[in-house]
């Protein structure tokens, strides 16, 4: 279909020396990350270190000033890129859920496939109901976001992204706005997804969770990656002093 050459032996997401500034404030100062298909990677780091900015660059919600990002071989920041091609591949879940408040939970899930992919409504509804069940929300199909708890809204948001059949999911501190009791139900949904083979990139402050599901953990500070590794070694053998300090505060 497209002339882009990509196969699964290459990284599905490749971030190479990315620089990003807001005006004069340089937020990303040369970040590189490779993600293979099916991998789950977690990005951790102190507030303001550029985690959200980085993850938003991956689906072109932010532009970049240097370096490159490719998703399945697509050059994300190529001005000629058809954004729709990118967004069909990459789903994103936000900290504040950002559901469409005027649509029911089921309609939220169905909207993009119908309006964007122009799929048949009956097929989409069937899939949407399955997704609602997958995130444990049977019976809430006809509730409006305003009638759902934070945890339930966040699971609808996950289902909504999944309805587009993405290859990669981005999660930006999706449990940060939730009560401790409801955090778990969202984490369970993400874990199921990760175990089903979905490529996931998560920004999270849930260290226990990161340790459990991540294949690789990256620690960012002031716009650079200062430490990374698989969880088994990352938490015990981190050599960078800033990482150790951060971990000691959090764990």
């Amino acid at each position, binding site marked *: 279909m497209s002339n882009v050459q990509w196969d699964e032996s290459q990284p599905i997401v490749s971030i190479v020396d990315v620089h990003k500034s807001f005006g004069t404030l340089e937020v990303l100062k040369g970040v590189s990350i490779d993600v293979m298909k099916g991998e789950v990677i977690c990005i951790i780091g102190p507030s303001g270190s550029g985690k959200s900015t980085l993850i938003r660059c991956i*689906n072109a*919600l932010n532009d970049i000033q240097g370096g490159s990002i490719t998703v399945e071989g697509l050059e994300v920041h190529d001005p000629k890129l058809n*954004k*729709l091609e990118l*967004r*069909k591949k*990459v*789903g*994103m879940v*936000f900290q*504040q859920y*950002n*559901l*469409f*408040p*005027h649509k029911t939970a089921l309609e939220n899930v169905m*909207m*993009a496939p119908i*309006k*964007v*992919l122009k799929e048949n409504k009956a097929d989409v509804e069937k899939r949407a109901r399955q997704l609602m069940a997958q995130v444990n929300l049977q019976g809430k199909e006809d*509730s*409006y*976001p*305003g*009638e*759902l708890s934070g945890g339930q809204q966040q699971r609808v*948001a996950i289902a*909504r*992204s999944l309805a*587009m059949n993405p290859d990669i999911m981005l999660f930006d501190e999706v449990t940060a706005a939730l009560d401790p009791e409801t955090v778990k139900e969202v984490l369970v949904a993400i874990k199921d997804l990760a175990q089903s083979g979905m490529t996931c990139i998560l920004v999270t402050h849930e260290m226990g969770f990161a340790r459990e599901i991540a294949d690789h953990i990256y620690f960012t500070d002031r716009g650079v990656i200062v430490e990374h590794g698989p969880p088994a070694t990352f938490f015990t053998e981190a050599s960078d002093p800033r990482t150790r300090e951060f971990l000691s505060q959090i764990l």
Partner: protein
Amino acid sequence: MLEAFSQYFVELADNYPRWNFIFFYEPRQWARIVKGLQYTLMLSFACVILSVIIGVVGAWLQNSPSKWVRRCVQGYIQFFRNTPPFVQLLFFYFALGQFTPSVTGPDGWTEVPIISNVGWAIISLSFFAGAFNVEIFRSGIEAVPESTQEAASALGFSRFQTYVEVVLPLAFRVSLPALNNNLVNLVKTTTQAIGIAVPELLYQCVSIWNDYPSALYPTMLLLFVSFIVLVGILVMGMSRWERATRIPGYGG
């Protein structure tokens, strides 16, 4: 029954000469009132619809990436909001009306302009109310969180789809109370069409009381009552719409 009704007003006019409800017993005057009401209704309906369309399109253009498009919309708003609607009406009809081509009328020999006085009244009043509607919708749009629109674009919605599917439906609900006020004003402002001889209700009433000065009070009463009813219907319709579009668990 109808006979008795007319008879009552004939006698009332005999006993109290200032209260000559002539349109209730003289068919020709009644026909004038009916025609006036028809024009007022038609003007109101057309201007409400058009001004809302202008508001929606204008608010969309106001968010255009092009600086010039935004400036044009801003200029339009400033002009129509800051000048008297009556002057706008006269300007459209007398000044712009001169430049529109004319065609041969139905009688085959008179020249009639392609835009009639009624047409100009609809155009000028719609643009007048539309300028306010642009501002009303804009503030509604500003109330829609950026993050909600971002979620839509992350799902692959284009800028236009996001506007139609997400921004407008939410902005509409926020805008309804202000829109309500503006449309009420618009319906009342249709009476200014008398200035270019549109035969709406005020025009007909003035004609009647010029012909029959004894009918002055009754025609004025009729005017007030008609507009109270007309605006009442509009307000009722709007609040019904407001209730129908209320989102459970969202907003006030």
